[in-house]
């Protein structure tokens, strides 16, 4: 099940400067594990020591924040686009 993951600038050093990565996984958790297999070290950047997604990272599936879905259990299907985006300020 190919899904496209958009990688934010601060993580592109780990992904050999790739801004997009295509991999498979049936939910967000599996996608993160898939990223780790391809780019060792990336998981500890996205998740804290307890394995939870870091609080300053937002993950979107097809434009929707996964906190409005099923968090890291949010399921993924063929052709989904996932964005990993640092929290940003504003007003």
């Amino acid at each position: 099940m190919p899904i496209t993951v958009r990688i934010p600038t601060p993580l592109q050093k780990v992904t050999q400067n790739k801004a997009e990565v295509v991999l498979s996984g049936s939910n967000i958790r599996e996608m993160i594990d898939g990223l780790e297999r391809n780019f060792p070290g990336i998981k500890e950047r996205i998740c804290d020591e307890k394995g939870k997604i870091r609080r300053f990272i937002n993950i979107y599936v097809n434009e929707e924040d996964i906190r409005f879905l099923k968090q890291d259990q949010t399921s993924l299907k063929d052709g989904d686009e996932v964005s990993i985006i640092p929290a940003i300020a504003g007003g």
Partner: protein
Amino acid sequence: MSYVKGLKCRECARPYPKEPIYVCEYCFGPLEVDYDYEKIKHKLTKDVLESRPKTMWRYRELLPIDKEPVVGLETGFTPLIRARNLEKALGVKELYLKDDSVNHPTLSFKDRVVSVAISKAKEFGFDTVACASTGNLANSVAAQSAIANLKRYIFIPADLELGKVIGSLIYNPVLVAVDGNYDQVNRLCSEVATKYKWAFVNINIRPYYAEGSKTYGYEIIEQLGWKAPKHIIVPCAGGSLITKIWKALKEFKNIGFIDKLDTKMYASQAAGCNPIVAAVKEDLEIIRPVKPNTIAKSLAIGNPADGVYAVGTVKESGGWAEDVSDDEIVEAIKLLASNEGIFTETAGGVTLGAAKKLIEQGKIPRNESIVVCITGNGLKTQEAVKDRIGKPIRIKPALASFEQAIR
């Protein structure tokens, strides 16, 4: 002369150089400016400060620019007003309004942050600035980047109030109205910012930009005669302002400008967008994002980037949080106008409405000093009140017609 050592991750304290970067590469924590306070303490005394012009730049050692500011030279030092009529109306002893509805040049507290951001963008050598905004930031970036002769791209949610749209367009930026809420605009902008090498004031310039808010806090202290009030009620959108006012108070304590700091900080939001207030009241460790639905569009950020720090500020200071309905916002706007002659935007209705509730609940004692933050101008959000304030009395141009009408 610079008093900035560099940037530092607020979460893991890793150091970074003074560059247009905003996020820690390791833990994604936000980067913050790291000052040399010892050097500042030596240079900046109350006498030095009081001899300077009454603008936000009188605190410039505590702001993160290395050269002279290029915009916002008249920004800040807005009135701190003793609100005697409101004291009576609310039954409290000592109430002040910090009135940034008359800030220069675009009538909101955002002129403070943007003055720093644009000056810093110039220092970095950018030729284009951009921002994602709920309106006030858009107005200020559009105006101040015009002064600085920079190209400007402004992204806003498409449903903003007309006053805020016109208040940006008049300065001739590229104004991009996105079909979506602010959080979606912000998400889009983070992708735009990756691709285009612009100074995004609330993204890659954020560590510097956000520091401008501290001047609002410094001024409160200085205008109270070098003392901190007991209670400050702050509007929350992304959560940065309350965090930075608190930082300002602590810095003034730290460099010896005030002897004691026992201020309690209160977060206020609209009930239709209250992730920070909910997190305080429910004692949550994380912020649960919401989809905003409120007339307080300037505060309609459902996924506040500095939310955890806003909650932390409330807790550390011993304050609390409250939200208000759209009706309560309008009533508070009218209360402020009819008592103090200040026409604030919806965010000001939020802070005063929340203050009223907190006083009535007994969370804020009636006999202690209170500062309510008024951060924006009502002329920009006329839609919010236009059907709630009566109509002119229409008459013929004759005395009889007038007297009949007022009988």
